[in-house]
């Protein structure tokens, strides 16, 4: 792997240059406690130090709502609406979110590629950034706290800039024109500093231990009393799934237009916490109660992972941080599996 270094000041210059390649998105502070990926207007507004964004990065490749095609019922024709090949650059993505994007790929690209997702993903540039955990983070026990792949560049914080890992050919091409100018050679002190950063970061995780048995305990303790107790608090609002970086469920609907002839087919994010998610013809519902729906998310995030072997949950903490009812996902999982490590 190739390593280069950039100073804090030059990072702003690099962001300016990225804006010329495509649409640049980066974390912004949107209120006292919340951050979100926003289109970058002034590079000085970019937040390098943030915990988690409201909306997950998957929305840039798989938007909340998109028109798949339009149709004309009289001509019996449909008109594809594939996304443009415009470059989208995501700067400041944490390692958990990068792994989550790869679990998205496992469903949207690997087997039967989804053309809409693929066009955007192929034209997307992902630039990661290092972070330090807060009490909601548990990416370490999910084994995704340090990524090897899935990014074009990854910025590791140093006292005087960033050590940049180059992950792909696209990443090399971003560096090449500025090599020696804003991207410098890495010196032994920088490596020492990165090492110290990682050591300090590792000591900051509040959850410790080995979670490899979790999915099996989830499957074997389906009737655990936690589900009933916690689902009572649940509002069924879907915030946990809509902010989740690895949730994939969508619904499809035809929206007719006023001419009574044409219309559009849309795809939009669904949530397993909604009643209609499990509703099928004949008014039968696979997940009739709030408890069934609550249960489903816990199973899906932890046990439905035969293709990826890593769980869909990447420990980003969003589902707890953004739960209006204050349901503690991590603590509930630990209760089921009987883990004690690092309980605060």
């Amino acid at each position, binding site marked *: 792997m190739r390593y280069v270094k950039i100073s804090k000041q030059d990072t702003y210059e690099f962001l300016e240059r990225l804006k010329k390649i495509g649409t640049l998105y980066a974390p912004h502070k949107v209120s006292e406690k919340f951050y979100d990926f926003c289109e970058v207007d002034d590079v000085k507004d970019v937040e390098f130090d943030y915990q988690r964004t409201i909306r997950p990065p998957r929305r840039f490749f798989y938007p909340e709502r998109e028109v798949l095609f339009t149709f004309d019922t009289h001509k019996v024709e449909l008109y594809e609406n594939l996304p443009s090949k415009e470059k989208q650059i995501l700067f400041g993505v944490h390692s958990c979110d990068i792994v989550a994007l790869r679990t998205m790929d496992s469903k949207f690209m690997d087997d039967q590629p989804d053309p809409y997702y693929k066009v955007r993903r192929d034209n997307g540039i992902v630039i990661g950034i290092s972070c330090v955990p807060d009490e909601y983070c548990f990416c370490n026990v999910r084994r995704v706290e340090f990524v090897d792949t899935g990014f074009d560049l990854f910025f590791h914080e140093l006292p005087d800039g960033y050590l940049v890992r180059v992950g792909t050919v696209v990443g090399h091409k971003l560096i090449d024109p500025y090599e020696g100018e804003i991207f410098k050679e890495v010196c032994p002190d920088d490596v020492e500093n990165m090492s110290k950063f990682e050591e300090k970061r590792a000591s900051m995780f509040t959850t410790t231990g080995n979670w490899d048995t979790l999915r099996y305990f989830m499957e074997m303790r389906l009737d655990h009393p936690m589900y009933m107790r916690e689902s009572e*608090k649940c509002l*069924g609002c879907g915030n946990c799934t809509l902010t989740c970086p690895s949730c994939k469920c969508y619904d499809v609907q035809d929206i007719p237009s*006023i001419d009574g002839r044409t219309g559009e087919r849309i795809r939009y994010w669904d949530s397993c916490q*909604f009643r209609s998610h499990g509703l099928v013809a004949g008014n039968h519902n696979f997940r009739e109660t709030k408890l069934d729906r609550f249960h489903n998310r816990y199973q899906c995030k932890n046990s439905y992972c035969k293709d990826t072997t890593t769980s869909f949950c990447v420990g980003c903490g969003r589902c707890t941080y953004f739960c*209006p009812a204050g349901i503690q996902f991590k603590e509930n999982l630990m209760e089921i599996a009987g883990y004690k490590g690092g309980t605060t």
Partner: protein
Amino acid sequence: MGVIDGCAGDCRPRVGVYALTSCYGCQLKLATVSKIMEIADTVSFESFYMLSSASKMPADVDVAFVEGSVSTEKDLEELFEIRKHSRILVALGACSVNGGVQSWSEGEMNHDQLHAIVYGEEKIGMKSLQATPISKHVEVDYYLPGCPPEEDEIMYFISAFLFGTFPEPKDYPVCAECRLAGNPCILIERGEPCLGPVTTAGCKARCITFNVPCIGCRGPVPHNTAWFDSLAMTFKEKGISEELVRHRFRIFGAHNPDLEPMLDKIYKGGK
């Protein structure tokens, strides 16, 4: 069954827009959607007093949109007539769907007490009733909530009928749309009593986007999935009193039968 079945595209569906006791805001919204001229070309408005004085009451129509709550004897008589002359009946707006703000006192005081407070000894030229949603009196086919309803939903309903299909109701809360809009959560951040988690989606979190907590104008999420108890528990933990929570919930949801039992469960430890 589609509205235009048997027309083969030659006839125009007949539509009626009626108002019971209300502010007329819903029909004003319908009359001012950006594509109103296209709607007027496509359907025949048999009755829509805001647009045409040639309106009849009642008229034989394929689709009737009824705004307002039943608040007088006359409202009730008109509503029965409208139902008799309409193939499809749509409740339009908060008053029609859930009774609206005028039904706030439902269950709190009886109609005679309310009447005495509002009118005193004065005689009025009509027989008033406790304000109720139209579904208490007639069969309603579809519900189009909002105060007033959203333009895209009005267009979706009319377009769906023109297509010979039906509008799919939303069964998830405003809270979901709010997060998708990228809004910070004012319930989490500021502890404001926001009703987004129990209110039917469709407004794309209009108020919260302007930093104002949801007061539930679109009514509780249908199919018994408005969890007043869970939300009351959340409010209680944030130190909000039962009285304030009840008042908030009742502004647009006084007729919801789940409301009181769910509040009791949280604040009084009932079942």
